């Protein structure tokens, strides 16, 4: 039982944090938003050198074959710096789809950047216009794609591309697992972004003076920030637990936490899932996505309010995080979609009316139409062309079906080689944890 990063994972996070701090992601993002992706590709090359792009690529294809827990640790740091580019797609989902191994060496080495669409859940490919490889899910197949119309995102650093389906490249891909891993990576970025938003707001509240006091001394301000800290502190364990639930089943599994002799009061229905070896990974991933997204959104709204007008400007660094959080919160399954997935599993009954999804799709369609009118393009929504994944309910996926605990803490050694090299290049800055220390001290008393 351990639901916290290992020392090795902490060092890995520190290395990435240092690397990204020095890379000036704000400037890189500004260039990316203006259409100059050269600095961004340099940054991605550095991430590839650090091992990020190869985390989920098997070793025989030049990757690290690391664990899902390594993935969330890394993606949280990427989210903390709001790294531009298709993070969840290129680092998590696409490598999982490419089971035949094609493009994996190039992905791991950072020579190519990938994005994907999975309509209607994921109707556009994030940064699909600059990705070297585009995929589109056409259940049960995976096709290549080419970028169609490109839409502006509310996040100026993201561009959303329609995907025109091409040839079939995978027929036996673990699509559900890929989508869950993409969602997990998205949730991790949200958590990271939320922490940065909190840190920025706290710093501002310490230094901005009004009425002769730092505004952080006013309860109306400090209490809001405390609520953000609580939301983030209780979202992270859900993220870690989801990573554990998605961990690759390993041979020689020991007792997962949730097994044991059946309780005398257990009904037959309750035992069925364990007898059949059903996994709760989907449910757990959805819980993480909802919690990280809501916490990040609270952080974003609070941070903006604490900053006041300065936070509402393009030149202030806050806006980049604010819009990223809003975009990611709706990406890889809306909160409503994930809540419905959880409810379906909890109640054992499909919730009939996918009202939320329809609302969401109608909204998207309207937005796409408006966007096309602005762009002067006349093509129909591409997600209806390639989008045969019409059933919004995720299908059970056989590779997930063993169990929900990670029996062997495996992948740490994979990371060690890599970041020992990096540690020589990037000296540690003494920061211990993945987060900024919220909720990490002990005894507290009355005031």
């Amino acid at each position: 039982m351990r639901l916290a990063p290992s020392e090795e994972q902490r060092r890995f996070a520190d290395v990435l944090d240092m690397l990204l701090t020095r890379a000036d992601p704000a400037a890189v993002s500004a260039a990316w938003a203006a259409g100059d992706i050269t600095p961004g590709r340099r940054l991605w090359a550095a991430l590839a050198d650090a091992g990020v792009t190869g985390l989920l690529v098997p070793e025989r294809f030049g990757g690290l074959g690391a664990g899902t827990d390594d993935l969330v640790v890394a993606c949280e740091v990427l989210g903390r710096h709001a790294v531009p580019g298709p993070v969840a797609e290129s680092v998590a989902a696409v490598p999982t789809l490419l089971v035949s191994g094609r493009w994996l060496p190039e992905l791991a080495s950072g020579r190519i950047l990938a994005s994907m669409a999975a309509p209607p859940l994921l109707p556009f490919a994030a940064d699909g216009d600059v990705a070297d490889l585009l995929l589109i899910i056409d259940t049960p197949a995976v096709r290549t794609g080419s970028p169609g119309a490109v839409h502006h995102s509310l996040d100026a650093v993201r561009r959303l591309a329609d995907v025109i389906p091409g040839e079939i490249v995978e027929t036996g891909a673990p699509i559900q697992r890929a989508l869950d891993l993409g969602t997990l990576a998205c949730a991790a970025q949200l958590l990271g972004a939320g922490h940065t938003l909190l840190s920025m707001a706290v710093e501002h509240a310490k230094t901005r003076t009004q009425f002769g006091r730092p505004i952080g001394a006013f309860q109306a301000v400090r209490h809001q920030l405390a609520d953000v800290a609580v939301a983030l502190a209780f979202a992270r364990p859900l993220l870690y637990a989801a990573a554990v639930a998605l961990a690759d089943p390993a041979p020689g599994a020991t007792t997962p936490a949730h097994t044991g002799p059946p309780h005398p009061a257990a009904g037959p229905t309750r035992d069925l899932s364990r007898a059949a070896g059903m996994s709760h990974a989907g449910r757990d991933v959805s819980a993480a996505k909802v919690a990280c997204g809501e916490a990040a959104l609270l952080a974003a709204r609070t941070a903006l309010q604490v900053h006041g007008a300065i936070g509402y400007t393009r030149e202030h660094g806050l806006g980049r995080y604010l819009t990223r959080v809003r975009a990611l919160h709706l990406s890889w399954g809306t909160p409503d979609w994930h809540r419905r997935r959880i409810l379906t599993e909890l109640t054992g009954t499909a919730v009939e009316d996918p009202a939320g999804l329809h609302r969401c799709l109608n909204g998207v369609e309207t937005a796409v139409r408006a966007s096309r009118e602005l762009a002067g393009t006349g093509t129909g929504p591409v997600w209806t062309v390639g989008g045969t994944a019409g059933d919004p309910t995720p299908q059970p996926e056989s590779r997930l079906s063993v169990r929900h605990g990670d029996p062997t803490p495996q992948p740490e050694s994979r990371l060690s080689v890599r970041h020992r090299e990096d540690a020589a290049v990037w000296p540690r800055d003494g920061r211990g944890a993945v987060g900024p220390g919220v909720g990490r001290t002990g005894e507290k008393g009355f005031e």
Partner: protein
Amino acid sequence: MNLDLDPPAAAFRDTVREWLAANVPATALPAPDTPAGSAAHREWEARLAGAGLAAVSWPVEYGGRAAPPLHALLFDEEYFAAGAPVRIGQNGLFLLAPTLLAHGTAEQCARILPPMARGEQVWAQAWSEPSAGSDLAAIRSRARPVDGGWLLSGQKTWSSRAVVADRAFGLFRSSAGERHRGLTYLMFDLRAPGVTVRPIEQLDGTAGFAEIFLDDVFVPDADVIGVPGDGWRVAMSTAGHERGLTLRGPGRFTAAASRLVALAAPVPGPDSADGAATAGGAALPGGAALPRGADLSGGAILSGGAAAAGGAAPPGGADLSGGADLSGGDDLSGALGGRVVDAWIGARAYRMQAYASLDEPVAPSATKLFWSSLDVALHETALDLLGPYAEIDSGWTGAYLFSLAGPIYAGTNEIQRDILAQRELGLPR
């Protein structure tokens, strides 16, 4: 990262589960704040102690098992999943005992802890005063040094369990000086000459707390915890336990979330409850296929006091299944379904945070803010799900009323936010 139990932990969990399955009373005990309920709950504590399960994390010599923190979490999960009685000894077991183990003498531990574990001595807390609530350091009750001990005088209020308890613990001003100095942590006998206990009826109809009037009550030196005048520092360790995992562990909320899901679901799905409890399917003591809304006893074990009033069959013989159908399936696809999910996510988040805190402790203030907010939201959702039938006095109504106290006791949530803002976020005062 992994969520695996090592063999000793798994074996311990199984032992606890089996013992509870065989020993938890089939029908709810009378409310603990009544004479009959007090006796029944003390007897239950004695049975727990007999099985070595009253306080698993205590040292063996005082009646515990010296179990690691993970085992205490597992016990907490199993206890609530099994629908076991409210712990009448909780103030002593979860608040005073950690203080004694940290600051008390060996003599005090040996004298006080074993009868506490056996339910022979039930403890009340005596913190708040009429003029000292959130501002606890404004305490005015005095402890005057006399030969061989102290004379206590003043008034304490909102004193949980004082109506049925034998002894109490709290802070007293022992010398003039600054607010946080000159306070002494003392234990006293609620039946000693000079003590008057006046019950206060709570919103939920129980006498869960009381006023205590002290008129020159003698306390021997042996009942001072820590050094005289150092009481504030000593008390803070109790406060942390009260806010953190010890008093309100995740098991309680995991079980409540399972009942909420069962209330919402026509037929509970596979492992609809979370976690260890769910793994064994223990979360729904009533069985797996309850008609929607039939389990109105839902919150009974949460409030303790509500158990007697609630129970499985509300008064008046109302048609419960009819009532539950009114809040039927299509409601769940809307906002209500989302709120059920959010309550479940919240309970799971607390449980996972508890596991995470074994390696990375979380601030007790953050924990207190989280569980108290979750408890209110969860029970409000349950009531909304029951619709007009929620109004019928039941375990759910009792638990709902009890949840409303959460953001107030153990230090109000406003105080907790201030502590977090200052100590965790480093914001100026």
